[in-house]
């Protein structure tokens, strides 16, 4: 990981170098998170680049990205660690004879137990530990970027379990004791607010809200991600999407959809937004039949404005 970051401008440029264009607040969040070693909770409407931010930050900081996707029912075994049951079983089978030899001289049960105890916790040691993302992040040799995606989808129990990790960067494993971070990871949590997160979690994080971009920022994003597009078309396209966001829609088009649309327009060799073209490609922007109908009805007006 890059050892020292000096200013938010540096972060801003660095992220831009990875094709992630953002406003100063986002850069500020990354800067402070790296300097203060605090997790960042990123919220905002879907598709504004919350996950992408973590990816860009990891590329910029030259740190490995470790990702944990949350879902309902996610538990410690999937997030933190698991014992390799199969391997344990296999080893006991293979070692059966060896064990027999070792225990050969012992006549009583107590003697056997003593010998076994003398061999140590062979089957509950690091060899049989399967590290899951969180443990990987803690044991990584260089400080990684840890992305805990859609934390609102996980159960409350899991959220509570995260608190220990977020506050002190260590985690308790009953069989091994407390595992502290070798190097403190840079943690991003994202949430779509499908459930209200607890105050305890919010308290431990810096909180970044990414809104839909304004016209200027969106232009720059499109220019960076779809460089093939002509200036005129880009202007029209962004203006159109911005107008769509002002409508009462079930799901507003996000940046990811703008980019998809821009790419497909480039593929279709479009030079400017024509009603027929828009009509036929609109489904890339809008994902609900109801929204599509609303926009198709007012399309000519939307294009004229």
């Amino acid at each position, binding site marked *: 990981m890059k050892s020292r970051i000096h200013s*938010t401008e540096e972060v801003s440029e660095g992220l831009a170098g990875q094709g992630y264009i953002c406003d100063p607040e986002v850069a500020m*969040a990354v800067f402070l998170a790296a300097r203060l070693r*605090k997790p960042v909770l990123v919220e905002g409407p879907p598709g504004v680049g919350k996950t992408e931010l973590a990816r860009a930050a990891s590329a910029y900081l030259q740190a490995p990205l470790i990702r944990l996707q949350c879902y309902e029912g996610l538990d410690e075994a999937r997030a933190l660690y698991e014992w390799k049951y199969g391997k344990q079983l296999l080893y006991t089978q293979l070692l059966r004879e060896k064990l027999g030899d070792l225990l050969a001289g012992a006549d009583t049960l107590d003697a056997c137990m003593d010998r076994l105890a003398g061999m140590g916790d062979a089957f509950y040691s690091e060899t049989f530990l399967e590290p899951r993302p969180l443990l990987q992040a803690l044991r990584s040799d260089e400080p990684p970027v840890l992305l805990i995606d859609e934390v609102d989808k996980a159960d409350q129990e899991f959220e509570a379990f995260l608190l220990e990790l977020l506050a002190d960067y260590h985690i308790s494993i009953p069989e091994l004791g407390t595992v502290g971070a070798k190097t403190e990871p840079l943690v991003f949590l994202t949430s779509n607010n499908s459930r209200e997160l607890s105050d305890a979690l919010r308290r431990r994080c810096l*909180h970044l809200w990414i809104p839909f971009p304004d016209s200027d920022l969106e232009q720059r994003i499109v220019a960076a991600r779809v460089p093939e597009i002509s200036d005129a078309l880009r202007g029209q396209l962004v203006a159109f999407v911005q107008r769509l966001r002002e409508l009462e829609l079930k799901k507003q088009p996000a940046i990811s959809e703008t980019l998809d649309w821009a790419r497909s327009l480039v593929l279709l060799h479009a030079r400017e937004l024509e009603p027929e073209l828009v009509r036929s490609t609109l489904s890339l922007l809008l994902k609900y039949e109801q929204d599509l109908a609303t926009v198709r009805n007012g399309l000519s007006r939307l294009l004229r404005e």
Partner: protein
Amino acid sequence: MPVSRLVEFMTVLRGAGVPVSTAETLDALAVAEQLGLEDRARLKAGLSLALAKTGEDKARFSECFDRFFHFSRSTVAPVPGEEDESLNPPPSPGGEAAGEGGGSGGQQPASALGRMLVADEPEELERRMARAMDDAGLRGIRVITQKGLYARRIMQGLGVEDLDGEILSLERDARPASVRRARMLREARDALRARVIEEVNRQFLLHARSYGQELREQAMRNVSLRHLHEFDDVRAQVERMARRLRILHSRRTRSARRGPPDLRRTIGESIRYGGVPLALRHRRRRRGKSRVYVVCDVSRSVAPAARFLLLFLQALHEVLPDVRIFAFASRFGEVTDYFRGEDPDRAVARIMTNFGGSGTDYGAMLEDFSALCGGELDRRGTLIVLGDARNNELPARQELLREMAARLRQVYWLNPEATNRWGSGDSVMPLYLPACRRAMSCRNLAQLERFVDELLSATR
């Protein structure tokens, strides 16, 4: 800007309703250390990351920040701009007076404040004002009626009495130069007073809000529901209370992590390990969905309580998804659909006009309800009746309620009258009591909140 100023800012933030913990205060100080205090926009963005943790909080934070650091900007780095122009009298009348009046006009005003107003020294004036504000204890301002008092105290602290005396004596002196001078000083004084009042206003908004908010909330909780409509922000208060309860009881359908051992799955998975049942699997307990039936008396005497109960339940939709609502007064009917996609306030108003009236008949209500929903009542259901049980001497039909209660999980009765009035006059409350798991009086928001809290724990 010293650290204490930042800490004071946190207090103001808390007052504005942004929850700031001690840990976050420390974070904010660390952020300030990283960013430095000079660049206001950067500091604002940085502090916003550390202190405001929801969308609403961000907006409140931004407003507070701008207001709080407004005055300190002019004390820390005085920018003589538009402010001193409006503050100091235009120099021309003073200059004229000096030129015209010859010997007498060229004099400095006798009072210290007058001299300061005439001299073009905004910084000095700012400093004096800040000191006078501190001396007057402006940060202790709590209620709106204190504004005049504080403004007067600050003006006195600035030495306005001497200035007033000077103006009066100048006016008594009939020479045109003196009169002109008096007018100029008067204008300058009025401009200063306007500024002081503005400053007092801002400090009031900053510091009194936390206290005032507390006071208001206390009052709103305890005032009778009947008079509650006089508070204009009562909806927000109900939402706040509901939000707290919602987080407290956030839906958790999976109960304890494990149920009894699941033999099927254990054996099924043991095949992977050659028939050795290595991992014991447990059944998962799932909580059944509970159903809530709410029957509200919407006759005039009970309507306010009904309104707030409905607002509460609407705000709790996330945790209590399956609620059916019935209203009765002149007639009985289901009103659940009134709330679909409608502003709750307006929905309640429509229910009142459609169902309101007088002459409630609880016996008939029980009959109607049992006819409409009797078939589907089971152990998952909870019935809530809101009403004063004043039955106008009609048959109470308590056996119907008892019969339904036996099939339901529980029955709650909310009565907007105090407990000691139950059973007086035509109230048949005592007849219904045996069927209720709990009957409580609900006369203010605090009691209503307590009930909803209990309901949320009892329905899961």
